[in-house]
């Protein structure tokens, strides 16, 4: 049973003090048969009280505020987690029966949200592509593997070309992105063939010898629902099954349901975000207590980045306010 020590640091640095920040963290690994949290410590600068609750999708979510003026916000999460290998689905059921079973899930509560399609410009192209890729003899499990391979082969992994606000249209045109974009595309492709698919955020913990995409930051992949099996983790960024080396933090419809750290504050919109994720193994030297270097490469998730649609000058901000205030009353 693999055991991992993970330290996930998130640090915001502001050029001038900011205040009244309200934040949400989804940094608590899911606990189930395949994943057990032995220990977790979350330390946040300013020592705020963290209030946690379980959200609609079953994720543990924390909330805290930081009212006093501050120039940095550091969120330090240390986890000791144990995983088990989940056996893979068998191929012993007739494919036709499995596809038939999937059709019945469309109007069932646990799956309806994970079958919902989103419209975008390339929707028809994607639909045609999915139809072409899919083979008649495939079981749903084989279709999942095939689509993952497709995304892996046809999208380039480039950091920094997309952000959390990049739309499906842009990703589709770029044919490139990072893990969250790969996961986004794959969930859509699966939903198009009636396979419930959800977005997963977490960490990838590979063996020392292999280098995988998504290390050093939070990672994202997808889960597909296979009849008579359950949720199967699939990582299109690395084209592999997400199993005992993928630590799950949250599941949801899309990135915004699982955003690991996000916040709103009053003050300058300029800021710098540093994220690092370090993984150690049980038999390693006790890395938990060692200081961790911050990576300086562009982080994969920049949730706190100022929104591109926030107007820059005060006149434009005034117009924006005016427009928002004119919401229709019933």
């Amino acid at each position, binding site marked *: 049973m693999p055991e991992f020590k993970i330290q996930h640091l998130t640090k915001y640095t502001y050029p001038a003090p900011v205040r009244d920040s309200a934040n949400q963290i989804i940094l608590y690994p899911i606990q189930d048969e395949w994943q057990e949290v032995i220990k977790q410590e979350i330390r946040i600068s300013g020592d705020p*009280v963290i209030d946690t609750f379980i959200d609609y999708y079953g994720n543990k979510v924390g*909330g805290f505020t930081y009212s006093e003026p501050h120039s940095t916000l550091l969120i330090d999460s240390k986890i000791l987690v144990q995983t088990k290998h989940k056996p893979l689905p068998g191929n012993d059921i007739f494919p036709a029966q499995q596809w038939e079973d999937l059709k019945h899930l469309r109007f069932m509560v646990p799956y309806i*949200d994970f079958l919902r399609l989103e419209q975008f410009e390339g929707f028809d192209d994607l639909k045609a592509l999915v139809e072409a890729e899919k083979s008649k003899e495939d079981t749903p499990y084989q279709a999942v593997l095939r689509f993952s391979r497709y995304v892996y082969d046809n999208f380039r992994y480039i950091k920094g070309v997309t952000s959390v606000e990049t739309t499906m249209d842009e990703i589709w045109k770029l044919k490139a992105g990072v893990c969250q974009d790969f996961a986004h595309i794959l969930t859509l492709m699966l939903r198009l063939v009636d396979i419930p698919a959800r977005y997963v955020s977490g960490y990838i913990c590979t063996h020392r010898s292999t280098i995988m995409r998504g290390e050093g930051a939070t990672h994202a992949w997808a889960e597909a629902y296979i009849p008579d099996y359950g949720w199967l983790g699939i990582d299109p960024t690395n084209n592999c099954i997400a199993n005992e080396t993928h630590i799950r933090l949250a599941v949801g419809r899309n990135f915004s349901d699982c955003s690991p750290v996000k916040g709103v504050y009053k003050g300058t919109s300029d800021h710098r975000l540093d994220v690092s994720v370090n993984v150690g193994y049980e038999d390693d030297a006790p890395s938990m207590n060692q200081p961790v270097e911050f990576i300086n490469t562009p982080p994969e998730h920049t949730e706190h980045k100022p929104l591109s649609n926030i107007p820059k000058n005060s006149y434009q901000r005034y117009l924006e306010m005016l427009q928002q205030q004119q*919401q229709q009353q019933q």
Partner: protein
Amino acid sequence: MQESGYFSQYSPINGVWDEMYGVDSIREHYSKVIDYLSRESSEDLARKEELAQRLFMSQGITFTVYSSGEGIEKIFPFDIIPRIITADEWAFVEKGIKQRLNALNLFLKDVYNNQFIVKDGIVPIDIIYSCPHFLREMYQLQVPYDIYVHIAGIDLIRDHDGTFYVLEDNLRTPSGVSYMLENREITKRLFPDLLPQCCVRSVTEYPNILYKNLLSLSPRQISNPTIVLLSPGIYNSAYFEHTTLARLMGVELVEGRDLVVKNQKVYMKTTIGLQQVDVIYRRVDDEYLDPLVFNPASILGVAGIMGAYRTGNVAIVNAIGNGVADDKAVYAYVPEMIKYYLNEEPILKNVPTYQLSNRDEREHVFANINKMVVKKTNGSGGYGMLMGHASSDEEIEDYKKEILKDPRNFIAQPTISLSAAPCYMQGGLHPRRIDLRPYALCGPDGIEIVPGGLTRVALKEGSLVVNSSQGGGSKDTWVLA
């Protein structure tokens, strides 16, 4: 019945229920008013009308029409002739609204908790889950006394035979109640003797009942909890109403920037420091309420307020997520809800509603579009709707394209002929189409409805659109004892 000068000129619209004019004569409940009017000279009435306009102007009773391009604040047009409802009619309407609101409250509790009604197949699951106002953030969140709809504005219309129909349930931020109150104040000045003579029931208790209910929701058991009215700001169409209600209840009028969340509690910034807020009567939409959880670009909300609400440290009125119950596609299922939750027959009727996401119903609507009104399921204020009988072929074709892009967002209803009431215009009485929006208040003691409401008038001859944002006016609404 003696025919007055005004009455003899009055010609009711064919095939339309007239509130004043029955079979060949004036209805009993209008007779005192008509008698009174017939004793007034036309100069007197003209003077009264002018006085009403000046009072509206001097007291700043305005309404903002966004798209008019004529300055943002406009006088809310007022017709001096009251709309009169008999005691029997009111008893029926009151009973019907209470029943409906009970069911809608139970529906909201159910849909955010056990979802029995979905599991039993009464309301289709995809209608709920595709509704943008079904907020998963509200799932299993406990609200005080299980009340979701504290304030409802139920829109009623009357068909050609006088039957009442519910046109819309407004369960999020219903507006217009300040005009109900102001219209009565103006009428008191225009016709001071008529109100007691006709035994008109008072509406002035409204702010007191609302205040009492807000007070009862305070999570802190203290003698003077802090209640605030959260407004989007001065550019909002209903800002006049926000200021009026805050003043009448004696509560603070605030905007998002006046509030801050600290450790799951909401505070108001005051000149003597932070003061904890217990109850928020908000007139800001869900989407803008918390930039941390909903629209991150919102500058009207309070970051973290959802956390304070979830932990029960603050009460929010109306509850968040009510839009799933007044979605126009869900509206079609309200009669079923009444049967399902209350085991009663619906007292008030629904207007037949076609779901455009259903192919058969859509084709039927497209084939009969001249007899239909098509609406957006999440629209309000009469924006973005199509009146089939009054639209050009081109408008219809464009609208059909819109519908096909996302049919779930549209419903259609047969054009219902609204009832008419006499209005004073051009020195005489003329029938104009009206609706009725009573305001129901739901608190721990039950549902209370002040006897009255806002009667909206389509001032243009032949028009069926009464929305204030579409140039409609209003009348004082009298409920007789």
